[in-house]
């Protein structure tokens, strides 16, 4: 800026004009145009002429526009020169002043730029208004800077480079949109929301209780029932009931194992209320049966039906009187055959609890969940605490603002008094000191919160 000012002063006596030879394009250079204008007989234009005419008119227009720009530039330098001549000294002052002003302007814009940056980055808890404003100022200022720079640094390759990127980059806007909510002040709704989440976490504790197996299996069996009845409604009731306990589906997984057990203990009136050994034995036999008929679904179903029916008939015909008796007898028989150790049965009973892989998995998952939820809870609590703190801080900040205005008012009063060359009254002095003290107290309060 300064350099330019000097230059102007140095070249004061020289003529700044370039004495450009302003020329308008000769119509002779536009053959189509001149031929059209020379048509005397037919005052009209043919469609064939349009294309050429368009190009000629376009080049004429561009030349006129560039001439106008040149003229305006020359006009400006002429006016400046003229002024320089007549108001020699004044201009110097002026040009310097203008230089200063623009310098200041630059500085202030850059300052603002920095400020707004810093507010945005360093104050995530800053007020919404503030951040919104600063964003606006960033954008508008940066634009201002650009437009200011363009005429000055027309020959600056960098400026041209920035000009030559025609693709508008709206990423910054997207970024600020994304960041905006994080800079917003904490509202009571936010705290409410956090508290709600915290409550939900507490409720979650109930879900961690492992329900008793009986209850759980009861429901799962019901589910099984409904599923099966859906898939095959033609099956007879007895077959269905039978399947509950004896079907290969149920004996397939360890989870289903318990289902058998619970069934036994649940109801004696049920037709499949046989002991565990009985069931296991029967199911083994049935599986053998089934494996033969595997391959076709219809065959499978048919086989099942037959085998189930025949089995139940067989068992019935054996007439064991009561299932407990049957169980005991079976155990005895098996022990005698050497197929079953006396301890085995007990182990088998106890095994259910230990070998329950689902239970183990559940407990494992629960432990993981507990850890996670504990972490979550801690984080939420921390957030809540911070939010509450921030709310109080915000309150104090509003108070601080009020105090600031009070101080300013007191200052203005005293200033006006001084301007009127009278000593400020006691009241005014007292008000000023009070306002200052109040403000300091608030500042201390805010510091303590931090």
């Amino acid at each position, binding site marked *: 800026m300064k350099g330019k000012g000097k230059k102007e002063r140095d070249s004061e*006596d020289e*003529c700044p*004009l370039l*004495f450009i*030879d*302003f*020329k*308008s394009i000769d*119509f002779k250079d536009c053959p189509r*145009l001149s031929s*059209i*204008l020379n048509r005397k007989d*037919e*005052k*009209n*234009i*043919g*469609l*064939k002429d*349009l*294309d050429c*005419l*368009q*190009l000629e*008119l*376009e*080049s*004429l*227009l*561009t030349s*006129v*526009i*560039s*001439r*106008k*720009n040149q*003229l*305006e530039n*020359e*006009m400006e330098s*002429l*006016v400046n*020169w*003229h002024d320089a*001549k007549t108001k020699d000294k004044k201009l110097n002052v002026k040009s310097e002043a203008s230089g200063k002003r623009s310098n200041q302007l630059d500085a202030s814009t850059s300052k603002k730029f920095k400020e707004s940056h810093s507010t945005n980055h360093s104050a995530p808890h800053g007020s919404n208004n503030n951040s919104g404003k600063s964003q606006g100022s960033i954008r508008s200022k940066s634009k201002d800077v650009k*437009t200011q720079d*363009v*005429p000055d640094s027309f020959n600056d390759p960098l400026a041209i480079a920035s*000009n*030559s*990127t*025609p*693709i508008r980059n709206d990423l910054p806007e997207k970024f600020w949109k994304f960041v905006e909510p994080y800079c917003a002040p904490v509202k009571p709704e936010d705290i409410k929301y956090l508290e709600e989440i915290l409550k939900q976490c507490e409720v979650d504790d109930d879900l961690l209780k492992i329900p008793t197996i009986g209850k759980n299996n009861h429901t799962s069996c019901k589910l099984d029932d409904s599923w099966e009845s859906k898939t095959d409604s033609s099956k007879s009731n007895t077959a269905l009931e039978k399947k509950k306990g004896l079907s290969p589906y149920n004996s397939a997984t360890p989870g289903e194992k318990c289902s058998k057990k619970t069934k036994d203990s649940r109801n004696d009136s049920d037709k499949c209320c046989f002991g565990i050994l009985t069931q296991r034995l029967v199911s083994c036999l049935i599986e053998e049966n089934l494996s033969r008929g595997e391959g076709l679904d219809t065959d499978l179903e048919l086989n099942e039906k037959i085998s189930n029916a025949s089995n139940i008939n067989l068992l019935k015909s054996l007439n064991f009187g009561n299932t407990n008796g049957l169980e005991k007898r079976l155990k005895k028989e098996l022990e005698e055959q050497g197929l079953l150790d006396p301890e085995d049965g007990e182990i088998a009973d106890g095994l259910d609890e230990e070998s329950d892989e689902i239970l183990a998995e559940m407990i494992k998952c629960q432990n993981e969940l507990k850890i996670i939820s504990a972490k979550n809870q801690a984080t939420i609590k921390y957030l809540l605490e911070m939010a509450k703190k921030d709310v109080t801080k915000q309150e104090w900040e509003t108070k601080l603002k009020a105090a600031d205005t009070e101080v300013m008012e007191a200052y203005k009063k005293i200033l006006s008094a001084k301007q009127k060359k009278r000593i400020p009254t006691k009241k005014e002095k007292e008000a000023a000191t009070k306002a200052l003290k109040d403000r300091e107290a608030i500042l201390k309060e805010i510091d303590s919160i931090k």
Partner: protein
Amino acid sequence: MQRLMDNGDNSSSEEIIYDKLRDLYSLIEQCHEERNKSEGNLSNIRKTHEKMQNEPQKPYFKQKLRTLYKGAIQDCDSEIEVLSKSLDQIFEIRTLIKKRPRKSGLSLFTKETSIRRGALMKMLQQSALTLPLFIRRNKEGKTPPLCGSVPAEPNYVGKVGDMVAALVKGPDEDENWILAEIVSYNSNTNKYEIDDIDEEQKERHTLSRRRVIPLPLMRANPETDHEALFEKGTLILALYPQTTCFYRAIVQEPPKNAQDEYQVLFEDSSYPDGYSPALSVPQRYVIVSKDLRRK
């Protein structure tokens, strides 16, 4: 005009065009007048410049030059106005011709008449040449979208009848960027219906908008809007001369003036270095290369 009269349908559109042409003529006469008027001022300026160079400090000259400049600027303004008006008039006439029902032999193009291939190519060349030139009125300001290399705005929807480059699946599952014309746009599905400009391909295509690139609606003037041109070395899609397909190419030389064309090197495996010799392609048929598969 003679031709127009010969074809002489009494349709109203013919008459409108005729009237418009008459208006255009008077506008051009006005241009001529304005030009002559401004010439007077300019020659005065020239004379004053000459005198002034001998004794530049004379305040009289300065004052005189000031008024002369002022007058000349005003002349420019009125000249600009009339010239813009006449150009607008030309574009109006052009759109009228385009919309006009077929029959009269003055074809730009439409689907109904079958144009021979050579004529089609000539027509494409012509329409590229007469694409309106973007003329900036002031030094600052951005080049508008769809002028030269400036792409359309992200949510831009092409108008019916606008020319586009469209990525179309060929019969052998290969994909080609073809020159096409917008038939309609469905804003619900975000899909264009387009017609191949080559009439031998009768099929109508429905394509999502990312497979459609609108062609520029204005030429950029290299003298004033250099930044709205693809620079040397840029990878672009360009219409291969005498075809209606866009292929990848590299800019060898951007146009030097408003009437000039790009010199581009097409990717071509039949040449030893992988590129064809420089071919000229008008601004209208040079667009951003968009690789969909990479996304």
